[in-house]
């Protein structure tokens, strides 16, 4: 091929629409992302295959430090607990544990994972509505704080405490009206109708369980820090009420998680980078509420935070490739990628930013981004403005660190490898790409179905 020839790009023609734009103009995503940290996207795909999840250790640690700074400069006693369900790949959990995080789990599976990772039992917060007797016994034996979700659990825990002759450390989860919609009232005991206060009385007067904390988790992807201030006031009110009635000190207030990441929710007018509150804004709301609630110096409770999404989302990327391009019946461009919604669960509620991983001119085209699943729901982005990608070009999907590596589904193909981009300048495989053997290892073939004959 002669070097005198000009660079080729797919010919494009687009109608210019006027009168439909907003004052901010259209958002183009053609700035190429050829490297993440110092690692070449092309090399990562060559080494680990496509698609592949990558997580930046540098971003994880920096984000944690930023969150920690925001709270600890405003409130003396702060403790983060890593939300396992957000991303429970052990290497990721251990980064947070190295930074000082406890573990926050919501199932026996996650609890076992945290123990196996080496987290001391009394540093594992056990949340969630489904704790089996076996889970509860294990948590009681290990002195783990058990956050009670409902009265059935409270009564069962009381029975187990008697049976085991132990005094379990417990908190109750409290739900409340913080002025946001939807109000999460399915978890825990309600504040406004007195259920929470009733549960507190049952625990303290029952004298079989040790009430050490109060917990709430007011919602997910919260864009309003002031809702946390309301929640902190209401939990503080309960804690102060306990002090007044029982002269009992509540050791911690756990504000849960739900801080928004920088992702862009579907239907948002502006990108998440511009609208999501900072850690400082959340910290200001929560810490000010606690400091002003009326605690004496010695009674100020430990502030526990279980934020997951905001600590890990930006550190995660999905690298993938273009399988094909096509033109839809209405003239729209469609691009088929080699990753589907089964491994990008969050594409159901975010417009994930997708960047090309190679240089292009500045010409762009409106494109629908489909996955490879052979199912109509498999839409990664129903509208993206991207340069003319061609078969085998690479793309980078941003802000995928939260939930995708826990909620992903194995469907018609293997789930991809997960790679950590180390601060040491090396890449580390932290979860291997699945194999057919992995998937079939739990299948059992009855003897009578082993053979068949097709004529």
């Amino acid at each position: 091929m002669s070097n005198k020839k000009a660079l080729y790009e797919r010919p494009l023609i687009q109608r210019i629409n006027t009168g439909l734009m907003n004052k901010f103009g259209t958002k183009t995503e053609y700035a190429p992302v050829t490297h993440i940290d110092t690692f070449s996207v092309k090399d990562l795909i060559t080494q680990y295959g496509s698609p592949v999840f990558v997580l930046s250790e540098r971003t994880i640690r920096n984000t944690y430090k930023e969150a920690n700074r925001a709270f600890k400069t405003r409130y003396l006693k702060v403790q983060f607990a890593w939300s396992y369900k957000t991303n429970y790949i052990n290497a990721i959990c251990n980064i947070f544990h190295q930074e000082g995080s406890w573990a926050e789990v919501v199932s026996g599976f996650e609890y076992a994972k945290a123990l196996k990772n080496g987290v001391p039992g009394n540093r594992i917060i056990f949340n969630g509505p489904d704790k089996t007797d076996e889970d509860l016994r294990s948590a009681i034996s290990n002195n783990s704080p058990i956050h009670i979700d409902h009265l059935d659990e409270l009564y069962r825990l009381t029975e187990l405490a008697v049976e085991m002759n132990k005094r379990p450390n417990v908190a109750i989860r409290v739900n409340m009206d913080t002025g946001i919609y939807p109000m999460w009232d399915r978890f825990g005991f309600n504040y406004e109708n007195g259920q929470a206060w009733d549960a507190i009385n049952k625990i303290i007067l029952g004298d079989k369980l040790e009430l050490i904390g109060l917990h709430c988790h007011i919602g997910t992807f919260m864009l309003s820090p002031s809702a946390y201030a309301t929640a902190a006031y209401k939990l503080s009110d309960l804690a102060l009420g306990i002090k007044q009635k029982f002269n009992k000190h509540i050791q911690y207030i756990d504000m849960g998680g739900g801080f928004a990441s920088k992702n862009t929710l579907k239907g948002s007018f502006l990108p998440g980078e511009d609208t999501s509150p900072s850690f400082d804004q959340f910290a200001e709301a929560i810490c000010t509420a606690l400091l002003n609630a009326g605690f004496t110096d010695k009674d100020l409770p430990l502030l526990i935070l279980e934020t997951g999404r905001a600590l890990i989302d930006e550190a995660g990327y999905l690298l993938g490739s273009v399988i094909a391009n096509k033109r839809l019946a209405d003239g729209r461009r469609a691009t088929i990628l080699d990753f589907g919604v089964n491994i990008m669960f969050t594409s159901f509620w975010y417009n994930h930013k997708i960047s090309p991983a190679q240089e292009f001119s500045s010409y762009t085209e409106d494109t629908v981004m489909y996955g490879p699943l052979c199912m109509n729901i498999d839409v990664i982005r129903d509208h993206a403005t991207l340069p003319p990608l061609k078969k085998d070009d690479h793309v980078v999907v941003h802000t995928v660190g939260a939930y995708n590596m826990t909620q992903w589904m194995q469907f018609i193909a293997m789930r991809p490898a997960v790679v950590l981009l180390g601060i040491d300048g090396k890449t580390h495989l932290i979860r291997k790409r699945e194999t057919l053997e992995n998937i079939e290892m739990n299948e059992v073939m009855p003897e009578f179905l082993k053979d068949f004959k097709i004529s």
Partner: protein
Amino acid sequence: MNLLKNLAISDTGFVFNPATGDSFSVNPIGLDILKHLKDGKSENEIRKHLLESYQTDKETVEKDLYDFFKMLDQLRLTEHD
């Protein structure tokens, strides 16, 4: 396939259809193709020109020209004999 005769095509890639008032933008290669169509060149001649002038291959040009011509049809910028 012929482009609409009264289509205005600027050197910067701005295309205007005076019959409908619609405006379009094309990238440099799209502009190159439109100019050749305007000059009455056949599809084969355009294909040959692209292969001689750009770093590409026959299959890519085949696919992309097919798509581009379909778009011109869809945008009602062509007339057929």
